[in-house]
């Protein structure tokens, strides 16, 4: 039985409405995220082929910016690049484009050297398998400043590009936690009961299907989620299940969405970092969003996180 029926069944048993609640309507103009492969690009227009092969034409706003390993002008994105676009006006006007962007989050297994470049093999969690990443010599200084312990057993989190099947790390997505991946600090004791909304940092991950909206959540019961590493977090998070609806709010932008939990965020739960997008968030990575949801909530993929508030929808 699919977990997508869980919300309806739980609602029936507890006598609540079967329609997932929607976040309060906001006054700000809605953002939408478009993903696809560039077929043609000029300074004013981009033509994309989305995952179903349908062509989409977007006007590039005069203030639009783009990222392709570094900040570039939108017209410099190569044809054939996979892009995530933040768009306004119901998805017709592109204002930020990220080309070939990927995020590499995991536990370091092995290090190697390939001429001057460094290669890192990572364990990205039971559902995501292993990935090999190349740290180009030019980016290694920037990465090592915030990942001082490039040793097996420590965590790694970087943003990079994926080109022709090879993943290159370009920017550190966070400061590396000082502890090993197996020694996550325990959450503070929750004296006085649980809060309905929990604050922390929200990150994104590209381990979702193309164009899929949803989140990965760390606090799932191991037997239910089939994930041996679930249920670890350094924030006092409540247990939820795959299929629960989660309210996710971007504190920096004042936007919120109610999204389904569709994966187990076993690696995200091991990060005890803070996000400093707008002020300093409380400690702990509480949720991992799909790129589309992250962009729709106003996050910048190249920055990697936003200060978030989550709760049961």
């Amino acid at each position: 039985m699919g977990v997508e029926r869980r919300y309806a069944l739980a609602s029936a048993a507890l006598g609540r409405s079967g329609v997932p609640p929607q976040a309060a309507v906001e006054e700000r103009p809605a953002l939408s995220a478009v993903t696809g492969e560039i077929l043609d690009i000029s300074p004013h227009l981009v033509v994309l082929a989305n995952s179903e092969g349908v062509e989409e034409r977007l006007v590039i706003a005069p203030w639009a910016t783009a990222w392709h390993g570094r900040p570039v002008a939108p017209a410099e994105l190569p044809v054939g690049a996979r892009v995530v676009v933040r768009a306004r006006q119901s998805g017709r006007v592109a204002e930020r484009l990220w080309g070939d962007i990927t995020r590499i989050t995991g536990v370091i297994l092995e290090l190697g050297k390939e001429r001057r470049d460094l290669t890192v093999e990572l364990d990205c969690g039971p559902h995501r398998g292993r990935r090999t990443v190349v740290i180009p010599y030019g980016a290694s200084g920037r990465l090592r400043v915030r990942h001082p312990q490039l040793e097996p057993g420590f965590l790694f989190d970087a943003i990079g590009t994926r080109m022709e099947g090879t993943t290159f790390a370009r920017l550190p997505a966070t400061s590396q936690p000082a502890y090993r991946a197996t020694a996550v600090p325990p959450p503070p004791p929750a004296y006085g009961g649980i809060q309905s909304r929990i604050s922390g940092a929200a990150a994104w991950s590209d381990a979702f299907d193309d164009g899929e909206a949803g989140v990965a959540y760390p606090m799932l019961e191991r037997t239910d989620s089939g994930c041996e590493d679930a249920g670890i977090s350094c924030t006092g998070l409540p247990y939820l299940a795959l299929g629960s609806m989660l309210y996710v709010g971007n504190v920096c932008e004042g936007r919120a969405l109610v999204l389904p939990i569709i994966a187990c965020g076993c690696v995200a739960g091991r990060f005890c970092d803070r996000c400093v997008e707008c002020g300093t968030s409380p400690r702990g990575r509480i949720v991992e969003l799909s790129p589309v949801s992250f962009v729709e909530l106003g996050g910048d993929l190249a920055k990697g996180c936003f200060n978030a508030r989550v709760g049961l929808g």
Partner: protein
Amino acid sequence: MTVETTTLATAALILLVLLLVLGGVAKIATAGTDAEPGGLTRLGPAMLVPERWRKPMLIFCACVEITLATGLLFTRNPLPRWGTIAFFSVATYVLWELRRRRPDVGCGCFGEASGSPVGLRSIGRAVALTAMAVAVALVPVSGAEVLSGLSLDLAIALAAGVVLLSLLSPELEEAIARVRYRAPCEQRPVPAARALSRLRSSSEWRSHTALLVSVEPEDTWRELCWRFFVYPGRTAAGAKAEVVFAVYLSGRRPAVRVAVVGADGNDGTLHESMGISAAR
């Protein structure tokens, strides 16, 4: 006068053996649960040695404690007595050193329970235990005296010792706090089997068993403090349906809710974007 010293030494012996055994067992339990990450990050003298030695160190310490306790209880040999004096003197020094070098970590005397930073009370307790060990070494009593010397004096001496040690134990406050403020139900792991047995003993289960096609749940999940079980079933009219039970995870006789959802039931309202694929 001789009787009094023997009584005091006997009381000291009982307390020493009790604390050594408790400490040893608590340390072994803590070392055993280290499979869960973060077990030894805040604990005691183990912090002063390199990371890979922490667990062996904890286990070694526990073994020494249990050996000393056995030696004190069953023999009159001076070796465990002087060993106990040495153990607690070293413990006093180590705690002092720990307080100076790592003021953030707990003493680990009782494993995980001793997570609060080392204070003067923990050090005072080590000093008091050293004094008791000296008393037991000077008046060599063993388990035999405990049985033969039961008296009101012994009980009073024992009570005084217990009060002294309780005043010097920060763990006691921690234990009381843990009992008073347990983690809320939403954050406690609860095995599915326990919820299932609570469900099977509920009246809702008995009144709906007739509708079930199978007694094995086809899906189960947990949301906050509720665990849900879905069984294939039939409605009273005989149509195919799903029977959903929700069991509250706190309390001995928890609330159980139930609903029968038809196959074509009110499930057409699901969120459009809800695809489940990254999960597996």
